């Protein structure tokens, strides 16, 4: 149905055209250009992927197609033409008549974007009814039809629920149905699956792709995930700092990226941990040993009989979706959540279950690095204090020793000490903050570091830098890492051992090679199968596979 070959698209009618588009955003009482002269062409029935890291301006560009800018932004130049209509000079009434009818929008957070006071189906029906396209009864019937096309459970009834009564993946599909209500010419998908778990994401992606193809709707698909965009888009535009870096049909772009920046985005996925030859050490005593831990919040058990070991100089990855209990496991080890049953051993000695009962030295040995470096360091302390405190607190260094050691640590994490030692966190980039967190952990001279989703809040290239740094430090200092993540690419890159968790239980554990080679347990297989691949045919094959099975 859809035209995957770019040549065919060129013959089609142009639906949306942007020429030298410029948008300003207001910051510190001054206007700054956030979209710097972008050209964009979209043909009928074509899906265009907008990809870029945070701050690239891809969302701003996406909603600009509706002739809309967020409060605090303004159009400052260029042209947007939608099907012959100049969107920048069109009256508010004219734009209103287009929105929802000919251009629809699917937001990132469906939970926040549905009005809590109305039923799903009423929020669906108000578009055709308010725009006088159909009666309420017709809209209801159409909604049920679309719900079933989008494979929502109980399509006849689900519309009569309120948004908070429906799960996240279902809401996102209901929102796609809503966008389809007037059979628009163009849908803007603004990171629609970013907030979902991988296994849910794949289901939503499949139905979205399917519906767009069925109605031959043009779409702009905004995401930061290359593999996702590879499945969805006919053509890809790579954005960076509000400028176009590169544009090409999906297959061409994947096979042969031209610009250095695009290549670097592609290259990220190639990082692999260098040495896994540590088998000879396995006879030694583990640094951390989690033994039959069952833990609960209140009366509800959320961890069931968890056991695994952490060896010196090795990385154990704990993988699972949200709610699988992986972060809770970290809380048990650090003593923030004393387990109901079982215990945690440190070099063969049982650690007191509550961190308040642990000695300074026991606390020192296990350090944590957090997901959000922004919240993990005190914004009111300078780098000097952040890294220096463990030095004076644990190791009793005087101010001269602290200064020297802080500088050594900064050099170790590849930041220039003279330049950074007196900075506040607000004067650091995201990746630099995470490096400071690593330095703080190292300052305590621990045996073991727990890394809780340390790269998932970072842009891919920066994330790779952090992984390389951690890998180097592990080799140099013989550290043990426990790596908590939901991202299988990270697991493949960094681990020696893998623990797969589901609903508070370990479903599989073993060496990386063992986990990533068949036969897989059912859940691990589902998890692996759900991670989008760069191959643009991957999802099609997966759909075919699932259909042939059922």
């Amino acid at each position: 149905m859809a035209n995957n070959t770019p040549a065919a698209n060129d013959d089609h009618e142009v639906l949306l055209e942007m020429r030298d588009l410029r948008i300003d955003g207001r910051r510190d009482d001054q206007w700054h250009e956030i979209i710097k002269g972008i050209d964009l062409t979209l043909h009928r029935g074509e899906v265009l992927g907008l990809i870029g890291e945070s701050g690239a301006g891809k969302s701003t560009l996406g909603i600009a197609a509706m002739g809309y800018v967020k409060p605090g932004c303004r159009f400052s130049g260029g042209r947007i033409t939608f099907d012959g209509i100049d969107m920048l000079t069109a009256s508010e009434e004219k734009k209103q008549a287009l929105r929802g009818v000919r251009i629809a929008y699917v937001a990132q957070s469906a939970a926040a974007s549905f009005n809590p006071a109305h039923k799903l189906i009423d929020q669906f029906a108000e578009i055709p009814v308010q725009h006088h396209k159909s009666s309420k009864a017709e809209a209801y019937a159409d909604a049920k039809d679309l719900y079933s096309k989008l494979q929502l459970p109980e399509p006849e009834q689900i519309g009569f629920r309120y948004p908070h009564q429906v799960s996240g993946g279902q809401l996102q599909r209901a929102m796609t149905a809503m966008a389809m209500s007037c059979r628009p010419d163009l849908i803007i998908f603004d990171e629609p699956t970013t907030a979902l778990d991988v296994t849910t994401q794949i289901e939503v992606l499949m139905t979205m792709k399917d519906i767009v193809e069925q109605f031959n709707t043009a779409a702009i698909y905004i995401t930061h995930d290359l593999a996702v965009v590879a499945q969805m888009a006919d053509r890809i535009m790579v954005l960076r700092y509000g400028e176009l870096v590169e544009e090409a049909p999906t297959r061409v772009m994947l096979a042969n990226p031209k610009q250095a920046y695009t290549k670097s985005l592609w290259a990220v996925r190639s990082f692999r941990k260098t040495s896994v030859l540590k088998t000879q050490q396995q006879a030694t005593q583990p640094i951390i040993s989690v033994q039959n831990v069952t833990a609960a919040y209140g009366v509800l058990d959320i961890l069931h009989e968890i056991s695994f070991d952490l060896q010196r100089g090795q990385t154990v990855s704990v993988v699972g979706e949200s709610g699988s209990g992986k972060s809770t496991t970290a809380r048990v080890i650090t003593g923030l959540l004393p387990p109901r049953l079982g215990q945690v051993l440190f070099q063969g000695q049982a650690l007191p279950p509550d961190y308040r009962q642990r000695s300074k030295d026991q606390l020192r040995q296990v350090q944590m690095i957090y997901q959000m470096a922004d919240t993990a360091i005190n914004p009111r302390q300078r780098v000097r204090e952040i890294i220096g405190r463990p030095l004076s607190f644990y190791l009793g260094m005087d101010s001269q020793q602290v200064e020297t050691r802080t500088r050594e640590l900064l050099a170790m994490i590849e930041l220039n000490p003279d330049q950074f030692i007196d900075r506040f966190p607000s004067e650091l980039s995201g990746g630099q903050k995470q490096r400071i967190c690593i330095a703080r952990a190292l300052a305590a001279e621990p045996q073991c570091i727990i890394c809780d989703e340390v790269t998932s809040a970072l842009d891919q290239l920066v994330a790779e830098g952090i992984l390389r740094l951690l890998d180097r430090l592990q080799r140099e200092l013989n550290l043990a890492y426990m790596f908590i993540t939901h991202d299988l690419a990270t697991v493949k890159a960094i681990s020696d051992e893998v623990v797969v968790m589901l609903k508070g239980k370990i479903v599989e554990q073993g060496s990386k090679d063992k986990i990533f080679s068949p036969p897989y347990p059912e859940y691990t297989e589902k998890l692996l199968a759900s991670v989008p691949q760069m191959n643009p045919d991957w999802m099609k094959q997966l759909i075919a596979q699932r259909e042939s099975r059922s």
Partner: protein
Amino acid sequence: MTTHSSSDSQLEPFTEPPPAARPSKFKRALRELWKSPLSAKLGMLIVLSYIFVALFAPWLTPYGESEIVGGPFELWGDKYPLGTDNLGRDMLTRLLYGARNTIGIALITTLLAFLIGGMTGILAAILGGWADQLMSRFVDVLMAIPSLIFSLLLLTIFGTSIPVLIIIIAVLDSTRVFRLARAVSLNVVVMDYVEAARLRGEGLGWITLREVLPNIMPPLVAEFGLRFCFVFLTIAALSFLGLGIQPPTADWGSMVRDNATLISYGDITPLLPAGAIALLTIGVNFIVDWFLHKTSGLKDGQ
């Protein structure tokens, strides 16, 4: 791997330029002041001139604070620029000294309220659990009684004197500070850097003073301005009712009350101390409004 074999420290600026080091705090503050809206500048001017008057009252007038210099209710003239009050004391002198007394007492009261409310609020947030519950429920009950009524009751019991007044109002007002301090601290306490400090083994003092307090200063400072206005108005109201600052101490609230009869003759003199109260609160409010606007990251309006 193939495209980037160089060290990753070089990769970093490639993707995100680090924000540059900022100019010094003092310079930034000056620039902010310069850029502040007219209302905020007006507010600062008002507050500064009040502080000046409060500090130099004795040098600004030839008469003493409660010195009887003429007959009661004399009219405005050369000798008494604003006339005399019901006892024949110079009105302008009383007005100038009133700045000292009224503002001074309100300031001490507000500081005390912040000391009590701020510390307990932060502690409640850090400790959590039953300690937090206990403190919060107690404050809820105290706040269930309107504070003016509560202070009337307490003043009946303990009598009216300045120390009693300060303590009563500070304690009652500290409940509001407690609520705010607790609420903003709760946002900070859940931050990973506080968890990191706990896991490091830091004590309560370090966590309170070094991790939490510096991060809740902006809302606390703004609240200080608002609470000061509130305390100031409460004390003025009580004095106006004859239950606050007692004679012969010059005080704006009681000056209105003592000379109110003049109003029925169309004389605006008794409105001057009331106006003095209003002007200062307006000034502080203008500053706080601007400060809140600045620190809340333009949440309200662009």
